């Protein structure tokens, strides 16, 4: 136990600058978010009869003005919290090996210690602890703020502000940490590694956005365009033909553009002629939306957090391989 505390103390000193900068940024933004949440809750409590979303706003002009004034400011920060996880992980991960190589201290650490892997595990363990603590604080405060911003819905059963709140921030931070460590170990210089790390994480994030809908496709539910309720997670939209075959709008544009030149009823059904539409006969197909319902929010977030964390751990494993094989300077 004593050794662990000693290691934590030394690790903190080695990353003091990053930890203090990130810690301050996270603390300030968390306090700000809690303050906004407090203010929003205060407005909602003061005007219990006013519906701020999808409701009658008669007699609530002052309350709405105040609510949306705070809401607007809060939205700017909560819309960008997805970056925070990656940033925390990257900034803490990149210097772990890169700084040691750049400053030549790896020569000391890697000869006094018998195992570079063991050394790296010690360094990564502390960085992981700090990453999780900082981003967990963000996860909690973003959840509090998101709930205050939408008093009309249960945020634990809604994809409102999906990806910008809760444990996903921690998972993304783990991915950023893993990417930072492995890129730092490969590049061996801090600033170039940070820049490369930004591109790597950006690429992984973009890939995840492309891949996740494919993953969810098989388990998504079909909704009609007029059934967009409960803040579900959008996966795909398109036209379901009378035969039952579903064509996404991408496929429609690419191969069945004729379906776009049709008469469409209010319920999203397509007809060849206006007369058919009016009579409701010979429907060609009907618009659909594939969604994951809001009730599955917690499950989806837990799953994605696990995926991001797992990917981060894999990258850390890669960093261990690189570290054990690379030159120390």
């Amino acid at each position, binding site marked *: 136990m004593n050794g662990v505390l*000693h290691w934590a103390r030394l690790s903190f000193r080695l990353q003091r600058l990053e930890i203090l900068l990130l810690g301050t940024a996270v603390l300030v933004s968390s306090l700000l978010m809690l303050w906004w949440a407090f203010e929003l809750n205060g407005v909602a409590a003061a005007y219990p009869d006013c519906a701020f979303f999808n409701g009658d706003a008669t007699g609530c002009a002052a309350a709405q003005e105040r609510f949306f004034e705070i809401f607007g400011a809060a939205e700017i920060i909560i819309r960008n919290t997805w970056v925070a996880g990656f940033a925390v992980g990257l900034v803490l991960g990149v210097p772990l090996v890169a700084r040691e190589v750049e400053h030549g201290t790896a020569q000391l650490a890697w000869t*006094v210690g018998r195992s570079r892997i063991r050394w790296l595990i010690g360094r990564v363990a502390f960085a992981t602890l700090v990453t999780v603590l900082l981003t967990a604080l963000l996860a909690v405060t973003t959840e509090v703020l998101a709930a205050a911003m939408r008093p009309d819905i249960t945020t634990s059963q809604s994809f409102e502000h999906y990806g910008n709140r809760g444990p996903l921030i921690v998972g993304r931070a783990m991915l950023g940490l893993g990417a930072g460590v492995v890129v730092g170990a490969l590049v061996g210089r801090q600033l170039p590694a940070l820049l490369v790390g930004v591109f790597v994480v950006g690429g992984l994030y973009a890939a995840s956005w492309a891949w996740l809908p494919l993953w969810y496709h098989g388990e998504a539910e079909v909704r009609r365009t007029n059934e967009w309720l409960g803040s579900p997670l959008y996966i795909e939209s398109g036209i379901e033909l009378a035969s039952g075959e579903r064509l996404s709008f991408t496929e429609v544009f690419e191969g069945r553009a004729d379906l776009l030149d049709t008469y469409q009823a209010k319920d999203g059904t397509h007809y060849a002629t206006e007369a058919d539409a009016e009579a409701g006969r010979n429907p060609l197909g009907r618009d659909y939306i594939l969604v994951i319902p809001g009730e599955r929010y917690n499950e989806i977030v837990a799953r994605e957090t696990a995926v991001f964390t797992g990917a981060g751990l894999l990258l850390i494993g890669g960093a261990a391989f690189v570290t054990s094989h690379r030159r120390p300077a």
Partner: protein
Amino acid sequence: MTPILEAHDLAKRYRRGVWALAGIDLEIPAGGITALVGPNAAGKSTLIKTWVGFERPTRGSVRVSGIDPWKDRAAALDHIGYVPQSPALYDGLSVEDHLDMAVLLRPTFDRNLARERLDQLGIPRAAGARSLSGGQQAQVALAIALGTRAEVLLLDEPLASLDPLARREFLHVVTDAVRSDGGTALLSSHIVTDVEQACDRLIVLGVGRVLLQASVADAVATHRVAPADEAIGEVIATFAGPAGERVALQRDGDGRPATLEEIVLGYLASARAVPERGQAA
């Protein structure tokens, strides 16, 4: 004597195609201080780094106490205390923090020995590494290497950036440690006068090859210097003397006894006739 450091047909080529080492065979016995002398880019650092496990041989093999560091690096490192060319310490840590870290990285690290060495030199252990002079930083790196209680110290040009007083103090600590503990040290330098008083053995490295390997006493006893046009022994090479005159280093023969510096200069001059490393390998 059993060799503690070995290199067999060791060659190392870097990615840009330059051969740093071109087939080296060396056996350094346990005990005493060996000077590894050669000009810049002779391959001294590369040779030391292959023993530490930082550089993988392109050809051949190295051993530390019979262990190939590329087969069992951890076991090889057990036998090595290493001081790099520029003793990089952690800016954010104090001297004592460095000792704490060494204990955490190597549980057998002798913190008291390292502390004693530092205290003898008057280096404040509470001071931040950043506030130390270059000489003090080198001493801290040496104290850490000594604290490992390793059988062999590999010192990679630690004197290069030190002022004369710091060099002398550093050499004194190395000599004292090796003599008192019966250890082995390999000290590389490109300036022979830095190391001649401290060393028992001499290895001259030039263009990636071993040009001379001998005890200092044997080297001095068997080499002589004479004006180039009067040399009658086995001439190793001719080179410019202090006044610009041509002198010849010869094995035995006539002339006055050669100094260690002249022996090194003579062998380095002889290497000019050796094909370039890229061709030789």
